[in-house]
């Protein structure tokens, strides 16, 4: 039996009178890549935002390693080892690659009151990480993010998640706006993350991308989970599409 990493139980979320999440429960195991699918408005993003601390649920509980946790904001989520990569990367484009990588968790050297950034460490780590996530071009870590392409930016966000040894990496539409080559890079990373001991939740519109990398597929529809144990090796894309659109239900 694989070890459970995170479990969300009976999550409910209302926006005014609209119920976005209706009693949603799901688990993610260690070293597992889960694909979260669903049509627009199915509640995927809301669910993910609750897990990453960007939104708070009206009711329900979250467990990490079997013990209950209270995720009040994004800092809490990061401290529990949950890292989220959004489609627009959420980087500060004016800042350099290295400064973005360490934003919010900057290493400091020297006397405490001097509050001095350890820029040499930041740049060295950044250089290594960029290689790891597959940027082979020699981009200096002091380059502002505004000078990078969409794929390179996504790589920076991914490098950040890797460096801080997040146990769970959530990728929300990471391949949107990316070219073919860059998309392959991101998918390769997702596979690599499992090998290096991370778990991932991958949200993508493109079912083909999801099928290529995930171990298990969860489908949401109208604020509910309608299927949570689809094995992409034993199921066809057509079947999953029909579950997403509600033309077929799993008994």
């Amino acid at each position: 039996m694989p070890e459970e990493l995170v479990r969300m139980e009976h999550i409910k979320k209302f926006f005014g009178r609209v119920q976005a999440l209706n009693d949603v429960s799901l688990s993610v195991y260690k070293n597992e890549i889960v694909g979260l699918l669903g049509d627009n408005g199915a509640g995927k993003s809301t669910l993910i935002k609750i897990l990453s601390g960007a939104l708070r649920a009206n009711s329900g509980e979250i467990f990490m390693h079997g013990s209950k946790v209270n995720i009040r904001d994004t800092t809490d989520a990061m401290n529990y080892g949950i890292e989220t990569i959004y489609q627009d990367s959420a980087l500060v484009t004016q800042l350099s690659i290295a400064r973005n990588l360490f934003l919010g968790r900057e290493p400091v050297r020297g006397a405490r009151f001097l509050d001095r950034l350890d820029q040499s460490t930041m740049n060295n780590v950044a250089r290594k990480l960029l290689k790891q996530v597959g940027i082979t071009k020699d981009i200096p870590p002091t380059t502002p993010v505004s000078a990078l392409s969409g794929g390179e930016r996504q790589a920076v966000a991914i490098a950040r998640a890797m460096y801080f040894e997040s146990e769970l990496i959530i990728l929300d539409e990471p391949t949107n706006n990316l070219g073919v080559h860059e998309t392959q890079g991101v998918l390769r990373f997702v596979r690599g993350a499992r090998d290096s001991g991370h778990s991932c939740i991958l949200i993508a519109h493109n079912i083909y991308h999801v099928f290529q990398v995930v171990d298990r597929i969860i489908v949401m529809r109208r604020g509910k989970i309608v299927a949570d144990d689809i094995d992409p090796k034993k199921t066809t894309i057509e079947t999953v599409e029909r579950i997403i659109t509600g033309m077929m239900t799993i008994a």
Partner: protein
Amino acid sequence: MLQKLVSKPEFGPLVLLVLEIAVFTAWSPAFISPGNISNLLAFTPELGMITLGMTLLMTAGEFDLSVGSVFGFAPIIMWTFYNAHLASLEVGFLVAMALSAIIGYFNGWMVTQLKIPSFLVTLGMLLVVRGTALYITDGFPQQTWTSNSILMKIIVGEFPVGDLKIYASLLWFVLFSVILGYVLTESKAGNWIQAAGGNEQAARARGVRVRLTKIALFMLTALISGYAGITSSIRVSAANPNSGTGYELEVIAMVVIGGTALTGGRGTIIGTVIGVLILRLMRNGIVLVGVPGLAYNIFIGGIILGMMALHSWLERRHHSGV
């Protein structure tokens, strides 16, 4: 090497400053006389201090229109306390600084908590603070030759250096520039300041305490404006409730000319110091070369427009090049 220098945001302003000095010196030798330089160095630090705080605040994506009012208000508080025998000058100074900090805190609180644009909040504060200064004093200046406290010597005591007459305020200005330049580019706080102005959402998602950062910067800006006002009141021997009127726009112009982005995310203290010199030397120089003083604003406005054009040109070139 040269390429690197040219791509720095401070490069444009620096060229302008050098050009300006060259033109004025060639035109009027009096421009570099010890008397004129002493004169320039007397007032420049006072306005300059405000620009330092404003640079950090604008880098964080906010600005403060109430700085000129606080510049007038803080010395009024200090001298009113002293002249009314309510407190010693030192205590009066601390009270004035504390009130400045509270004004800054209130600005920051309104902007970050109530999410009102800083333009509106600080415009309101400008009127409240100026009005208070006028009301307290009935519109009359306060005497400041009534004390000979050592504090006055520390803040703005004068001493000769060769033919030049230097005020201690110049040293404070240099010290503040070095400290705040360090904070902006070398410290962790500086990274937060730039991130807060660059992409507030992203910064918050990374755990940067954007609210705290902004409130602290509003307080810093108000404190340094109050301090500059006190410096000025001691040097000119009068605390006028109207002093500092209109400074807010000149300060913002100096900061922007220096290369700090009006939209936040990017700022430079070195650039700001250059920007301060550009506008101060311009005011001084065009009078020396015989341009009517009333035409001064034409030149200031022209320079601001010119610098903005240069900026947008450099920016476009920078982006298309990558």
